[in-house]
């Protein structure tokens, strides 16, 4: 727990810095400085510009915020869905539990990347970049809950046979009263699931972006920026193309460090 505090502090500092960069007057992640494509570091563009002359620092900051906000929201949705399904499966009787876990297994067996690609490519063409971002993270959440639900189910089964639960039932507590006590007891199960899901969604969104199926332009995404690394011609122009991937790895390490149990 001692490690988590400074790690969290660094993460929060990064997010605050990103907010400051994005909200600074006169900056825009979409504005093209067409006289300065692939420029190096300068007073106006601290991390240089991309191939269309857009400020790389602003785009990386915006991608960080978008990715973090989307991934946290998707992780919250996933965890809530997993909590509902896992708890229902554990407490609703053996048949329901078996059926719910079968559904989870089917979901887990699906090639999720292809599913994501299918869903994204089936969207209306004129879906705005903002909506495409929302839909991307929603789809990630909709497909990401089964593994989490399985873990919650196993934990909920342990809770079901816990002493306090037996005493509560023996004491005549009604179902709703039991559930009210259940939720705080499930938190130690749900928080790690939530923390594990956040980096998973960050990387999933980056994957989709690299396939051209993530967040639509001109909104920046990690995946879109990682695509620059596929082009050795661009790598020789400016070393700043490594900046997004360096920051992505750093953010993932920080998120992982937060999620790891002591």
């Amino acid at each position: 727990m001692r490690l988590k505090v400074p790690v969290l502090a660094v993460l929060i500092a990064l997010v605050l810095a990103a907010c400051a960069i994005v909200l600074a007057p006169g900056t825009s992640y979409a504005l093209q400085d067409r006289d300065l494509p692939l420029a190096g570091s300068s007073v106006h563009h601290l991390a240089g510009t991309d191939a269309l002359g857009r400020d790389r620092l602003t785009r990386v900051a915006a991608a960080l915020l978008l990715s973090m906000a989307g991934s946290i929201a998707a992780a919250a949705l996933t965890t809530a869905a997993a909590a509902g399904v896992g708890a229902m499966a554990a407490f609703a009787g053996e048949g329901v539990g078996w059926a719910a876990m079968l559904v989870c297994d089917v979901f887990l067996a699906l090639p999720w990347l292809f599913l994501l690609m299918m869903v994204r490519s089936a969207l209306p063409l004129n879906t705005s970049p903002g909506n495409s971002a929302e839909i991307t993270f929603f789809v990630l959440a909709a497909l990401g809950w089964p593994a989490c639900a399985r873990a919650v189910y196993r934990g909920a089964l342990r809770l079901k046979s816990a002493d306090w639960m037996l005493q509560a039932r023996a004491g005549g507590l009604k179902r709703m009263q039991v559930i009210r006590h259940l939720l705080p007891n499930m938190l130690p199960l749900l928080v790690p699931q939530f923390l594990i899901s956040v980096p998973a969604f960050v990387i999933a969104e980056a994957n989709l972006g690299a396939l051209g199926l993530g967040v639509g332009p001109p909104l920046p995404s990690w995946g879109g920026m990682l695509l620059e690394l596929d082009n050795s011609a661009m790598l020789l122009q400016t070393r700043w193309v490594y900046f997004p991937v360096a920051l992505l790895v750093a953010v993932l390490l920080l998120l992982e460090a937060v999620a790891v149990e002591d």
Partner: protein
Amino acid sequence: MRFPGRFACWILIALAAPVARICAAQAATRLPGELAWTIGYDPKTFDPAKVDDQESEMVRYLTAGVLLRFNRHTQEVTPSLAESWTVSQDGRTVTFRMRQGLKFSDGSPLTSKDAAWSVRRVLLPDTKAPVAEEFVSPAGVTVDTPDASTVVVRLPKRVVGIGKVFDEIAIEPAGRPSEGRVTAGPFVVSDYKRSQYVRLKRNSYFAARDGSGNQLPYSTGVRLDILENPEQQIRIFTRGGYDLIESLPPDYFELLKKTAPNTVRDLGAGLNTEQLWFNQAAASPLPAWEKSWFENRAFRVAVSQAIRRDDLARVAYLGHATPAYSFISPANTVWYDSKIIAPHTDVAAAKAGLKRAGFRLKGTQLVDAAGHPVKFSILTNAGNAQRNKMATLIQQDLGALGIEVTVVALDFPALIERMMHTQDYEACLLGLENVDPDPNAMMNIWLSSSENHQWNPSEKKPATTWEAEIDRAMNDQAVSANPVVRKRAVDHVQQIVADEQPFIYLVYPNVLLAVSTKLQGVKPAVLEPQVVWNVEELRTEVGR
């Protein structure tokens, strides 16, 4: 702190693709005197009569013996297997006089019967040869062989540029089509490994000789590696594994210019065009109000005026492209009309034009007369960096008019499905590859009845008067024997297209090549195949 195992997996997965790519960048072994370069995908067919894709066309070009060859350098039709050829006064009878002593690659004699059989084969409906369409009425064509060295082709009506059609008809042994294994061209197919390479070996019976009487081709063979990735191509090229790269992307051109400046060549604007168009198909599922924008000339002209083509050429193509305003490139000196008046960049004029057409600004958003916000998507193909960049640049350009544009990159099959079948798209940004400078080769684009008439395919009758006028002018030039009349008709079509903007032309990409300094006999041309059009005269220093 223990190392997070899950994260290690992610790192491994992320590294797997580039590592696999680097490992895969190994060319097959090169035989002595063999030329080598790449094609992007497996040829769909080796049957020269059925060629319908670029890579099959490359194999056909290298292997086929043809009666006439269209010289890509001089842009003139020259005899090849035919010693001479004549076209009758009415343009309906073409007579070929074959060379004496011709042989196929297996040593069997090649006579007029083989030539006639090959021409008849491509005309048969069952063969489904794309080249048959170029005879305009293939069913009415007859082929006779009065003697062993004469072939007479009779056409139901004159076909302009008929000579070039015979550049695409491979002469095969009568009754023994061999899919390139027995040919009268410089090479024969000797080996094919799916997704790896096509290997061609020298045809020792090839009829051509150089000025000193030496047998052509000079090289012992050709290896065409099947490789799409330009990174790998360049890596292998710089190691000497390939002799040339055609159609080099601009950023890689710039890279090679730094590392191997003697190898790169920018031939200037090519014949190809990149263009944007709006879906005007009557059958498209777009809402009526949206269709009405796209059918509105003022709207199309305003969009054209808002696009900064100089920026597209400079930013998306790193300066290796020329702003385009017509379907005929200035590289096509015979047919290009330098006098056409086309909408150039003028945002103020674009705004004024939209206002006159009933559009107005509501805040920063442009709305039509009924109050519908003007927003649409531009579809392009994923994986083409230049098109994706252009679409994003146009997105900002049109933002200046208050138009909200969404850029969508789809893989090619999905894009074609929308464009040709469901017609469920708003605007599309694609390119057109012109292999023939004669506008007659573009009939399938301009005739309103054509399924390749992309903004409104397969019209039963022309939807607008200007489309009817294009039909009339294109048909006039297709049947006229008078070059002046043809030029006037084509100039007229260029002006109509500039006025109506069914296609908003963006740029003419430059022809960018990389050629090994060890390759001899190179005379690059803007027409495809740009470097290997004279393949029989090419040789590496080693193979000399």
